[in-house]
């Protein structure tokens, strides 16, 4: 049975075309993917991402459990801070990437991907028991929350109209309780678009109210509601991982170029395997590419070097900003230096592509490409 967001009827009224994603019926687009995409890059957009999961992790052992099961030492993440990380299996492969927020003493909220709430909840529960962490409770509250993301250069100005809290004081990856439009919720200076912005965790009953207030407040900035179509093009342009694509088939954080997120100074499940992999080296790594020729790379396309297969595309699309095909994929370590030429095979033909350093689209793109 397909689940719907609490805001489904609102999206219908706004004229959304829907799509199914991880068991949820969500808006794919409201007007056009390109328009929504550029709106976020240049102005501001609001996303309903309630299909994502919410887990509350509470108790004196909460930090220990998170440290044990993720790449991060949660003891280093103080109250009011959040961290992007991954949960790994014993063999070092990623179960899910996620953000966890340290909201207050012994209270964390973790945001696994859509459809992963049960798996992650069960994993945490199992490991807590296995490792004798008794003072911790893991609660799946995904059904109770609406999650909204407000992203873009005018995101702060939009949200500031709805709250007394000085949003400019919230640090990057900071998180806290806040009152927005009279509704108490959690806010974090995080996002999946590469633009400045915030994400709000709101109790379901208040979701519609906050969403419509955000649209109203954003009117002066030409805000738009944004669908999953643009969410995907926005994240891919910034080389952000989509778990279902980039971790498919079992990938480690080292392979996914998440090594920067590994805090090696603590014990965590999967650490031994990763230490071994790091020593051994030679593994395919996530690589970012921009097409030089016409065509759009897609998931599963082979990556070639002089006709030899050197990798596979995991995510591909037409970049609304660049107007050419872009892709992320795993490539042999010898063929992924920025500037290297590769070929991507699409339906029997090859497209020339160039390896680039992430992010595929630079930070100041909107500044350098104002509307004509």
């Amino acid at each position, binding site marked *: 049975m397909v689940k719907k967001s609490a805001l489904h009827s609102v999206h219908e009224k706004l004229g959304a075309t829907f*799509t199914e994603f991880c068991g949820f019926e969500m808006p794919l687009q409201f007007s056009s*993917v390109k328009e929504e995409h550029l709106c976020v890059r240049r102005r501001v957009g609001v996303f309903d991402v309630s299909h994502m999961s919410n887990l509350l992790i509470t108790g004196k052992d909460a930090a220990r459990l998170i440290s044990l099961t993720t790449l991060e030492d949660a003891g280093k993440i103080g109250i009011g801070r959040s961290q992007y990380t991954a949960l790994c299996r014993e063999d070092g492969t990623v179960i899910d990437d996620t953000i966890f927020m340290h909201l207050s003493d012994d209270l964390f909220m973790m945001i696994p991907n859509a459809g992963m709430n049960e798996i992650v909840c069960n994993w945490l529960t199992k490991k807590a028991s296995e490792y004798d962490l008794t003072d911790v409770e893991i609660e799946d509250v995904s059904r109770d929350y609406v999650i909204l993301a407000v992203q873009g250069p005018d995101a702060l100005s939009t949200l500031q109209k709805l709250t007394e809290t000085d949003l400019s004081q919230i640090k990057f990856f900071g998180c806290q309780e806040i009152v927005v439009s009279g509704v108490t919720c959690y806010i974090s200076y995080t996002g999946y678009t590469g633009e400045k912005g915030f994400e709000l965790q709101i109790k379901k009953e208040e979701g519609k109210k906050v969403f419509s207030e955000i649209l109203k407040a954003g009117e002066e900035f030409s805000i738009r509601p944004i669908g999953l179509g643009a969410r995907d093009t926005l994240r891919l342009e910034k080389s952000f991982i989509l778990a279902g694509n980039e971790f498919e088939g079992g990938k480690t954080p080292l392979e996914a170029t998440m090594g920067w997120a590994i805090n090696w100074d603590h014990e965590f499940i999967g650490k031994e395997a990763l230490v071994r992999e790091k020593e051994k080296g030679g593994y395919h790594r996530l690589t970012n590419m921009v097409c030089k020729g016409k*065509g*759009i790379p897609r998931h599963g396309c082979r990556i070639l070097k002089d006709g030899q297969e050197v990798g596979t595309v995991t995510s591909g699309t037409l970049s609304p900003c660049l107007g050419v095909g872009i892709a992320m994929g795993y490539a042999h370590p010898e063929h992924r230096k920025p500037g290297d030429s590769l070929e991507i095979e699409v339906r029997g033909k090859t497209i020339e592509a160039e390896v680039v350093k992430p992010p595929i689209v630079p930070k100041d793109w909107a500044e350098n490409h104002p509307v004509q």
Partner: protein
Amino acid sequence: MADEVRDGLKYSDSHEWVKVDGDVAIVGITDHAQKELTDIVFVEFPDVGKQMNRGDELCVVESVKSVSETYAPVSGEIVEVNEALEDAPESINSSPYDDGWLVKIKMADASEVEELMDAEAYKEKF
């Protein structure tokens, strides 16, 4: 808004339309089809001069999210492709029956057109 189905055209089961112009069939996709695809960003054409059989893969039409095949509603030779779509693929969305035409086929057997649906039949079926 209801899908536009234009009178005077013929329609295939796979949502292509045909406009007969002498011995040439102009082919495109219907309003219904372009709506399903959402914004089209890329079209891959067959080579001009290629011989097609009815039912062969004609063009590949790509949206941001998906890749879709279109099929030749009639047999014949590709005599022209709509090159304007290279720079403006979204014309298929905004004008599926006019500016968004895909290819022109010089028909090998004009009677094949009779086997396609007329506007009423297409409307009824979909």
